[in-house]
């Protein structure tokens, strides 16, 4: 019998560290729910049936959202049991909930269609997902669940190689391991995680949490080979000799540069280099950590996506004055609203409608200013729905001793140069089953999309895992019948 609930219109807030405190360190900004707060928020959910629930449709990996939220309410008197049951529901579709709960743009995904939005605030699905994962990790509940799951996995006797340990590869690996395949990930860097480790800063996604989520994949039997650069250490051709299928999740790691004089002056970083030094190499702890980074007194970040926000907020934590320079206007900013607001709270300034045309250096080859052309919007829109802009012929010069370029990334060249691999505009081409032009080789994430989001990459990883499973099932049955 359905229980009639009173509508609670307002979202239960999650505590956040105040801006004036958090700009001095790299510790997490949002502190997340406690069990009591989580249950209070969970109670607001109207429990739409799973075959209808619009939130599930909005989630790229289709987590049964009312299902896991319902468990928190159902077992409210036994927090451990509540979290264990909720985690079981989430894990059926998502192996990295502590990560996605933190970094997904929920406002464009699961929360976008939440029916509660018609009468009040949408359910805070991301923070509830994060709560379940965090509580489970702190109490060892996730280990308990793994311990129960692993012995039940039936080995298929087939091997799959995954290229890249980012969100797409990790998701595909997790799904395939649960299905009983022998999975090995080839990762070029010294740590798995991809953009979760080198790109997204500690204050949004603590690295210890990513490490712990990846450790769970290892316990599912996934092997990870770091320091292996596919295309150099081993080729896709060689992988196909040893493995029954291959998944390419190599991402979009090549930074785009601005074709303007002075781009190679000292003090000009790509966002990828800056964030890799800060996040992966922990240069904010120099000299305790050996990797250096230089942040001047005034930093200009060029671009207005999530990467630009991450770079700007990281630079702010070194004590710099930070300006985000964007060639379009405020309404065109592509970063998440939450990130833009956090950046503003932290004192980062925004300059709109300016486009860099020259980087000006001093006599020692260090950058000292950026010359911008002032832009203006037109009524026309481009393919992505953004306003077109044109130069006005007027210029403005802004002084800075550090410049960070965050205008986007391309898929990695080492992979896309594989003979026989069909590529269009630098992106790997796949069919409706995520298979590339090479039979048995699948691909997903930024390698096929260009620069997109963590959760879309995970969605691709999950879809590819299903397609690989179908492909390998046929292969297996074909062999048995032969």
């Amino acid at each position, binding site marked *: 019998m359905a229980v009639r609930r009173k509508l609670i219109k307002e979202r239960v807030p999650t505590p956040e560290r105040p801006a004036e405190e958090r700009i001095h360190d790299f510790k997490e900004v949002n502190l997340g729910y406690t069990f009591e707060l989580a249950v209070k928020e969970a109670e607001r959910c109207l429990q739409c049936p799973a075959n209808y629930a619009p939130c599930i449709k909005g989630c790229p990996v289709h987590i049964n959202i009312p299902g896991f939220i319902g468990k928190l309410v159902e077992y409210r008197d036994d927090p451990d049991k509540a979290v264990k049951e909720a985690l079981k529901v989430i894990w059926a579709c998502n192996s990295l909930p502590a990560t996605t709960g933190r970094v997904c743009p929920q406002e464009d995904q699961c929360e976008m269609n939440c029916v509660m939005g018609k009468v009040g605030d949408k359910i805070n699905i991301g923070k509830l997902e994060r709560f379940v994962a965090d509580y489970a990790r702190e109490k060892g509940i996730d280990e308990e669940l793994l311990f129960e799951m692993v012995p039940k996995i039936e080995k298929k006797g087939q091997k799959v190689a995954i290229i890249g340990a980012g969100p797409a590869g990790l998701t595909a690996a997790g799904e395939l391991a649960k299905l009983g395949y022998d999975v090995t990930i080839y990762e070029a860097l010294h740590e798995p995680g991809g953009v979760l480790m080198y790109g997204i800063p500690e204050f949004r996604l603590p690295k210890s949490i990513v490490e712990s989520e990846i450790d769970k994949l290892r316990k599912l039997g996934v092997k990870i080979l770091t320091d292996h650069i596919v295309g150099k250490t081993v080729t896709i051709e060689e992988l196909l000799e040893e493995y029954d299928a291959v998944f390419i999740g190599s991402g979009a790691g090549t930074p785009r540069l601005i074709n303007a004089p002075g781009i*190679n002056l000292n003090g000009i970083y790509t966002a990828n280099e800056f964030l890799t030094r800060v996040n992966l190499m922990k240069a904010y702890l120099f000299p305790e950590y050996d990797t250096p980074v*230089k942040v001047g007194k005034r930093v200009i970040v060029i671009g207005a996506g999530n990467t630009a926000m991450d770079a700007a907020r990281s630079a702010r934590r070194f004590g710099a004055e930070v300006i985000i320079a964007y060639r379009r206007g405020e309404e065109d900013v592509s970063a998440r609203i939450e990130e833009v607001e956090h950046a503003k709270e932290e004192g980062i300034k925004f300059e709109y409608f300016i486009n860099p045309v020259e980087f000006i250096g001093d006599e020692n080859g260090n950058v000292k200013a950026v010359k911008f052309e002032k832009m203006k919007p037109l009524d026309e829109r481009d393919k992505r729905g953004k306003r077109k802009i044109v130069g006005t012929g007027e210029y403005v010069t802004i002084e800075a001793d550090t410049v960070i370029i965050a205008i986007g990334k391309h898929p990695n060249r080492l992979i896309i140069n594989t003979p026989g691999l069909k590529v269009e505009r630098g992106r790997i081409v796949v069919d409706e089953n995520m298979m590339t032009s090479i039979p048995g080789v699948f691909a997903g994430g930024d390698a096929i999309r260009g620069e997109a989001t963590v959760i879309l990459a995970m969605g691709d990883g999950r879809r590819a895992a299903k397609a690989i499973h179908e492909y390998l099932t046929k292969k297996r049955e074909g062999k048995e019948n032969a």
Partner: protein
Amino acid sequence: MYRILEKKELAPKHIMYRIEAPHVARKVQPGQFVIVRAFPNGERIPLTPVMWDREEGWIVLITFVRGKTTMRMANELKPGDSILNVAGPLGNPAPIEKFGRVLAVGLSAGIVEVFPIAKALQEAGNDVTTLHVAPAPMAILKDEFTESVSRHIFEGFEIQEGWGTKEIVAEIARRGAEKVKELLSEENFDFVLTVGPAGAQKAVFNVVKEFGIPMHADLHPIMVDGTGMCGSCRVTVGGEVKFACIDGPGFDAYKVDWDELIHRVGFYTDLEKRALEEYLKSLRGE
């Protein structure tokens, strides 16, 4: 984790490590490099496999002790220990073609990178002369070169009292340019190759340019990942921005913007000095 099978001091500040790294040994070609991370809080540094055995699965790296990381490796790593990460092979192989008479120049520790390339060029039918310019006590790999190429020349000099790194590097540049000028004036060469500090390579290039001989230079910009994802190692070659880790590390010396490269390699000098000073202090127990 990659086990150190052997460690030896070849000359002052020059340490040889033979390391188990089958994934690199199987594939590496002359001119390619690896990225090494030796300690949990360590940085990633580019080094070059000098020798390797594909069957036995080992590579030889020779470090020149110039800062904190290389000094820590020299002080703290013993045979039997492991290096955390050896990623590679990275970069493009050097051009191994039949050029004719080749002069391969190793400026200071750059000589270790010359070795595999010079050896391969000789094996490809070239008549290779190698030249090593360095302070006298730092003559290394003499026997190996003598066995592998037509002729090996060591141009050594004494370090004068009061000289620091700056003066030593200036002397390497001066002597290198002078010796190359002498060789090119007296003999005919078809191809020149250099490895070493950017300033010294530029000095040699300025001489080679006068003779109009094709020249290949292995560049040493600052690297982080070594796989083309950050652009720390970007250089201007022929007016275009290139990433040395995936487009190089070797380039046509005539197309390189040498002054820009010299500026860029010095960007972290102050922080490098600080890291080393703090490490030395910790060694003294301060």
